[in-house]
């Protein structure tokens, strides 16, 4: 589904990714762990197409197409979902309006008719239910006045509604209490644990991986994948630290 080959990227002319390669197949959950400053978030932003993250080498194929040739909104429409570590607040725009416009924009990209208000509300209610989020929350402005945990749950509701093929979740577990962590983990499983979908979790800690069991764990250090293994690698890292393992 996603094939990253020898990817290099700079931020403000500073090389961050230095020849990173990674292949993710449909049905798989991958976790990327690594010390601060290793380039984990840069990888997510580069794949999402954030302005300022410049690709200087390598290639990324997403379902066989050249991901890097697409604008950020086209990458989303192609089925890539980037979960933000710090979701942005948008006062005066309700979650429902935002998500309906986003979904219909993606549908237009695929020459599909827009969902009606009723169809959309039914979908939103179902996905909010998965994340145990009250519909009233979705009537409120995007992320405004939401706690850290509510923002992350709202991200997962967005993911449920937009129904991507590949979710790249950047520290979705940060700022979550134990209950919210479990709810988000279960949400990720319910929405994304399917044979035709895949997940890339970017995380510092093992704890989210207790709920979303990765098939592969990679250590990112110095802008490259320096070690890969199964779920047990995350436990090893948690016990012994990056320096000992990688």
């Amino acid at each position, binding site marked *: 589904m996603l094939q990253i080959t020898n990817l290099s990227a700079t931020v403000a002319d500073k090389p961050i990714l230095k020849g990173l390669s990674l292949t993710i197949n449909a049905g798989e959950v991958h976790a990327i762990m690594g010390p601060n400053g290793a380039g984990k978030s840069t990888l997510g932003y580069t794949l*999402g*197409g*954030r*302005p300022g993250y410049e690709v200087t080498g390598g290639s990324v194929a997403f379902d066989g197409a050249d991901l890097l040739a697409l*604008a*950020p*909104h086209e*990458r*989303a*429409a192609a089925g890539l*979902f*980037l979960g*933000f570590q710090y*979701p*942005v607040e*948008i*006062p*005066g*725009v309700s979650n429902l309006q*935002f*998500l309906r*416009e*986003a*979904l219909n*924009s*993606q549908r237009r*990209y695929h020459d599909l008719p827009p969902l009606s208000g009723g169809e959309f509300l039914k979908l939103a209610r179902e996905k909010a239910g998965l994340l145990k989020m009250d519909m009233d929350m979705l009537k409120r*402005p995007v992320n405004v006045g939401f706690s850290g945990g509510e923002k992350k749950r709202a991200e997962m509701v*967005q993911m449920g509604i*937009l129904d991507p093929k590949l979710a790249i979740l950047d520290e979705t577990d940060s700022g979550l209490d134990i209950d919210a962590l479990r709810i988000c983990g279960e949400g990720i499983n319910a929405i994304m644990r399917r044979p035709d979908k895949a997940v890339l979790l970017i995380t510092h800690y093992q704890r989210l991986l207790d709920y979303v069991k990765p098939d592969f764990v990679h250590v990112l250090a110095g802008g490259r994948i320096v070690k890969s293994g199964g779920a047990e690698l995350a436990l090893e890292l948690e016990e012994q630290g990056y320096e000992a393992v990688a």
Partner: protein
Amino acid sequence: MTEALPTRNAEDWRYADLAALAPLWPLADAEVVTVAAGGDYARTIVQSDGGVTRLTLVLESKAVAAVYILNAGGTYGRVEVDVTLHDGADFTLGGVQVAGAAQTMEVITTVTHAGPNAASRQMVRSVAGAAGVVSYLGKVRVERGADGTDGVQSVRAMLLDRSGQANARPELEIYADDVKCAHGCAVGELDANGLFYLAARGLGPAEAKALMLQAFIAEAFDGAGDEENLRVLAQARLEAVL
């Protein structure tokens, strides 16, 4: 003898489109509305085809007034609001102005706290597209003895293109001691972080900007009787200058 056309030396006309003003000159006197003690007044000004609108409000003791402005049409649109608040009066102003190419839009407010314990809140959001000019000149004057005054000015402008121009001059002139006055002023561009967030959810560049602008003007029409209508009119103008 007719009054001479203002020049750029006149502070109140510094950013005006004087060529567009000339055929309108001399201006008619302001419409004067006195709101009786304890009375209530609301007014919406939608300036959609250019010209100068002048309104003078006198709020007697404990009178409450709210004025909402959408200043967005014609080559030159100017809305002047002059308000005098007496003892315990309350004034709210919410304004949005939008200027695209070859448009100059300006809102000028003069709020005088003449009596004690009066409150005024002004919120103006201005958006300039390519080659558009938006200006806000706002003075809050607190006279001697107007203690307990609570005056707030929130002024923000958004430039959608480097060729746009936004001028903002919030002013405080205070002659009383026990006064709470706050003013905030900022001119900026659409937040790149927010735009990327919306793009990452599938919104195209124009759609993302339109949503960010909706957010930018969101609070200005809070509480207006025809809030929804104003929002729709403003949004249409915003999308036209993107």
